């Protein structure tokens, strides 16, 4: 599915956190959103996913305006997201986390007639765990997982919704080099396997320029530039504001 924003604007007090941003993510693309701290990247995701209301502009999925929809409706429309600080259900095991998410996705969250898990939830949970390399940790209580596995679980929960569009807010935040590489492998694997429109926020420029097909650069709420990695690398405005000169070297 194609994700599009038009003239999206959000102000906090007098400060425009997102200022008239217009941008399109084509169906099946892998895009990165970069920018210095405070550039409005997380706000951008919060606006798209309905976590906060925009002051102006529109968000469109496959041309349909979803700006006024609530979070639950946007989720049903096919948009899933993972968070900068992993969000999951810490007292449940990994398997329970995923089975609960699958049940929620299938509209069984209000079922009072049977015991948990509802039929079919378990095999699907196993599939998702395998896709993210969490199969061996299935019976561990989520609170005891390593930081990297918690981030993977957060993404796994989003995937339980069978999204067509997936937003990942700093999937590698707080990770060491090895964990980072594993996470990026997984993200690429999921993207190619599920044919998702995937957008991720990332600070590590090596990762961004290595895997992203398209890059959008935000700076103080404004869209500084958007395009292919090659175009971004050579964009004078981006270099001046953000990248510096070192990236030009290779």
């Amino acid at each position, binding site marked *: 599915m194609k994700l599009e924003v038009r003239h999206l604007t959000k102000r906090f007090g007098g400060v425009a956190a997102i200022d008239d941003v217009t941008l399109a993510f084509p169906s099946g693309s892998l895009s990165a959103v970069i920018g210095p701290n405070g550039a409005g990247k997380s706000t951008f995701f919060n606006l798209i*996913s309905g*976590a906060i209301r925009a002051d102006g502009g529109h968000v469109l999925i496959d041309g349909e305006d979803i700006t006024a929809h*609530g*979070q*639950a409706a946007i*989720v*049903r429309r096919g948009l*899933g*997201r993972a*968070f900068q600080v992993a*969000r*999951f*259900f*810490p*007292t*449940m095991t990994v398997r*329970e986390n995923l*089975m*609960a*998410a699958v*049940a*929620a*996705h299938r509209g*069984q*969250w*209000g*079922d*009072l*007639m*049977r*015991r*948990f*898990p*509802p039929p079919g939830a378990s095999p699907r949970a196993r599939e998702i765990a395998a896709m993210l390399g969490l199969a061996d940790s299935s019976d561990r209580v989520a609170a005891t997982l390593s930081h990297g596995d918690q981030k993977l679980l*957060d993404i796994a*929960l*989003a995937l*339980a*919704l069978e999204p067509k569009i997936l937003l990942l807010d700093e999937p590698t935040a707080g990770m060491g080099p090895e964990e980072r590489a594993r996470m990026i492998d997984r993200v690429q694997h999921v993207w190619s396997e599920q044919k998702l429109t995937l957008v991720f926020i990332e600070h590590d420029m090596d990762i961004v320029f290595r895997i992203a097909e398209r890059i959008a650069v935000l700076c103080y709420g404004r869209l500084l530039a958007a395009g292919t990695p090659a175009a971004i690398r050579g964009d004078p405005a981006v270099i001046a504001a953000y990248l510096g000169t070192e990236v030009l070297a290779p």
Partner: protein
Amino acid sequence: MTPLAREGGIALIVLALLLGAPALFSSPAFEDFIIRLSALALFASSLNLLVGASGMISFGHGMFYGFGAYAFALLMQRTALSLLPAFLLTLGLTALAALLVGGVCIRLKTIYFAFVTLAIQMLFYSVIISWESLTGGDQGLRGGIPRRVIAGLDINHQRHLYQVCALLLVVGLFAMRHITASPFGMTLRMIRDNEARAAFLGIPLWRPKLAVFVLAAVFAALGGVLASLFVSGAYPELADWPISGQAIFAVMLGGIESFLGPLAGSAILLALNDIFTRITEYHGLVQGGVILLFALGLRRGVLDFLRRDRARGEAASR
């Protein structure tokens, strides 16, 4: 064996033991204890549907206990309904009241939710005190409960009241257990664990929250009806805020993570009360001291403490 069948089996065995007990040993004191326990344990367990299962800490849950007692006593005194319809109508009216109160409260978070529930309970209490023509004011609804007959049981007799209470206690607890173990119960746990994530899995949060608020109120009213039968009427104390505190004590004392925690807590609370009122006039002080010891010594409810201790033992022996 499925968990449902296993728990159903346990419930049936416990019920058979409770119903058979008077045939083995006749103890009016034991029967009296179970009657009082059934009311408090249903009430405390219903509170734990909110506190433990959903992470919604209500300070005003006692209003539904009081509502159940008053609604039932009034229906029995003022209408010609027989016991069972009056009982069912009471639960229905409580659900309606909870829908209204919950509609206001569930949008609020944490401490705001707690205090608005408390405020509404105090309002409810004031109405009971002021509306003398209906409720008897601070004197309560006296004059007893007429037509105390259900399914051939005349519950003027303590033995029969005991049987009815035992049945409702076991059935009520089993129903609440089933709720917490259902997919709906898991949804509540998701909301308790991480509300933002639950919302992002497409769960419209207000619906499960309002639903559990109403369910918890209905089970509290069930306890209130039993209390009303026991005291033969309804008194403002049944709706006053310390009654909410008592349920919170029972929950904290027994454990919020174990399903039977509130039942254990209720039994401990009643037993402490019975023992200390007999030996000292400062029973409140002693009881408070014991609760403090539990809270500071175990730092969690008794059943939670035992469970965690056992889990640690298993981990160590592995």
